[in-house]
């Protein structure tokens, strides 16, 4: 085989890793240790497989090797306590035939990686590592941070889980809703960093967005009766479908109104619509959640052949519902944009000025960006230019800054 062994082992890990860690953590109750010994098994595979051939069942081989490592680690301790003696015995007895991927264990993995005891950045790193099956090098490349930083975040996350004695369990029914929202938030955070990078030279990072989409699909497969995971997948499919049109040849962002809609990925849009239908079916009459509302807004854009064909009234209504469900100045700002298209810039400007006077978005480039747009449409060029310059100063993304500076210059 001409494929590089390391890359082949990494591919196995990506497919089997999450289930291996999940089944080990289920047996030992210790996610941190499960991940450590799984890593050791992976390192052993890199040495063993090229020399002795790739085993028929790679997942079972890695699990058995990791189990042996766990047992060795316990035996090395001076005083093997009763619990670990029992565990070691059970692990040794369970042998190689125990390789049975179990969705419940994977679900425990997801909820533990996104446990509220962890910081957001630890949740993201740990989720990409143990649910996404990515190497720390890949994660570092995707997040544009040094490898050592990713390693530190994962180490810290494991220590936090151990210190907080977080059980390897799915949450209690009483906190299910909140914890699920937390998990979805982590996945969407990963996606948005790929959709509109807050740092770095590039406006979008498709690999990171694709990884989030994959995590979302895994999650909706694990929780088929929950509406919001399907809705999150729908939202991400719609947004991902526009990537080819969102960037011009120079790598600068192209706004929705100016995008060549023939470059939108129709198959991806079709997948998004199917996912939204699944979400609505799972909700079976209950009100749409925040991801379903956002996905429905994105769907309106996706089915409009031209910006002028967009059902802006429908979008305004959806933003109003979203604002009631999850009040936020960013939602208000988006509602203002939709209102400007449905009704006109003057009405929209009043909404934007209310947000501005509340001070909630001060420092963000979003507010002056939208305000500049509305002022320009109202013919108030000098004020518009000042807003675009303010927005350009407020953004850390280089591509975004170029666009805003271009808009300011055009109002010269």
């Amino acid at each position, binding site marked *: 085989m001409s494929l590089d062994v390391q890359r082949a082992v*990494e*591919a196995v890990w990506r497919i089997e890793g999450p289930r291996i860690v999940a089944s080990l953590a289920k047996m030992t109750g210790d996610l941190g240790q499960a991940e450590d010994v799984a890593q050791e098994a992976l390192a052993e595979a890199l040495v063993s497989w090229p020399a002795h051939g790739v085993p028929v069942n790679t997942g079972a081989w890695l699990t058995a090797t990791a189990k042996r490592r766990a047992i060795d680690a316990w035996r090395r301790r001076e005083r093997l306590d009763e619990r670990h003696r029992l565990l070691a015995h059970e692990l040794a007895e369970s042998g190689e035939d125990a390789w049975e*991927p179990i969705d419940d264990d994977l679900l425990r993995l997801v909820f533990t990686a996104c446990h509220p005891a962890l910081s957001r950045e630890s949740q993201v790193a740990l989720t990409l590592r143990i649910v996404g099956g990515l190497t720390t090098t890949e994660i570092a490349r995707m997040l544009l941070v040094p490898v050592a930083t990713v390693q530190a975040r994962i180490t810290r996350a494991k220590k936090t889980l151990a210190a907080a004695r977080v059980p390897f369990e799915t949450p209690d029914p009483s906190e299910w809703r909140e914890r699920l929202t937390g998990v979805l938030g982590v996945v969407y955070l990963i996606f948005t960093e790929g959709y509109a990078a807050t740092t770095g030279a590039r406006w979008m990072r498709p690999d990171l967005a*694709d*990884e989030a989409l*994959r995590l979302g699909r895994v999650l909706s*497969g694990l929780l088929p009766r929950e509406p919001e995971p399907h809705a999150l997948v729908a939202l991400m499919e719609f947004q991902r479908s526009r990537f080819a049109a969102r960037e011009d040849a120079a790598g600068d962002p192209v706004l929705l109104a100016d995008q060549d809609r023939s470059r*939108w990925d*129709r*198959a991806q849009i079709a997948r998004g619509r199917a996912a939204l239908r699944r979400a609505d079916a799972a909700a079976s009459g209950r009100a749409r959640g925040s991801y379903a509302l956002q996905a429905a807004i994105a769907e309106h854009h996706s089915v409009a052949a031209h910006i002028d064909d967009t059902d802006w009234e429908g979008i305004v209504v959806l933003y109003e519902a979203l604002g009631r469900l999850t009040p936020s100045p960013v939602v208000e700002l988006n509602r203002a944009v939709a209102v400007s298209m449905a009704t006109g810039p003057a009405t929209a400007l009043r909404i934007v000025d209310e947000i501005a006077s509340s001070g909630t978005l001060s420092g963000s480039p979003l507010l002056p960006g939208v305000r500049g747009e509305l002022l320009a449409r109202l013919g108030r060029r000098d004020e518009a230019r000042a807003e675009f310059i303010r927005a350009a100063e407020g953004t850390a993304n280089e591509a975004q800054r170029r666009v805003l500076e271009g808009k300011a210059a055009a109002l010269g």
Partner: protein
Amino acid sequence: MKHMLIMRTTAEALEASKEMDFEEIINAMGAYNESLIKAGVMAGGDGLAPEAGYLVTFSADEPPLVTDGPYGEVHELFNGFWILETATAEEAVEWAKRCPLGPGNTLEVRRITDESDFADFADNEYVQKEAGWREQLGTN
């Protein structure tokens, strides 16, 4: 990146499969497809009907020649495909290895081209039209 797994079988493998319980084959393949969907990598796929179709052969001087086929000339039967969306080619190969196929069958793993493969011809009218066609056909 997207890859196509191209499934081919031989007459012998096809014969051998007739002795197997068809429901067992459906169950094994169904479980495989489910694992692809649950892993978030399945982007499409279909099977091809086993009866012979037609073969259209092109030559320099003659109009295309239509014969019954392709069985007469080709010993391997193309009988189905998957389209997988994975981070690397190796991952697509790993998924291919997990397919529950019997002896004699093969899976060919081929990368599906995207716009970047035609970057040198970005000005070409038809390369530009391609995106629009994909839109109408929903085949992106």
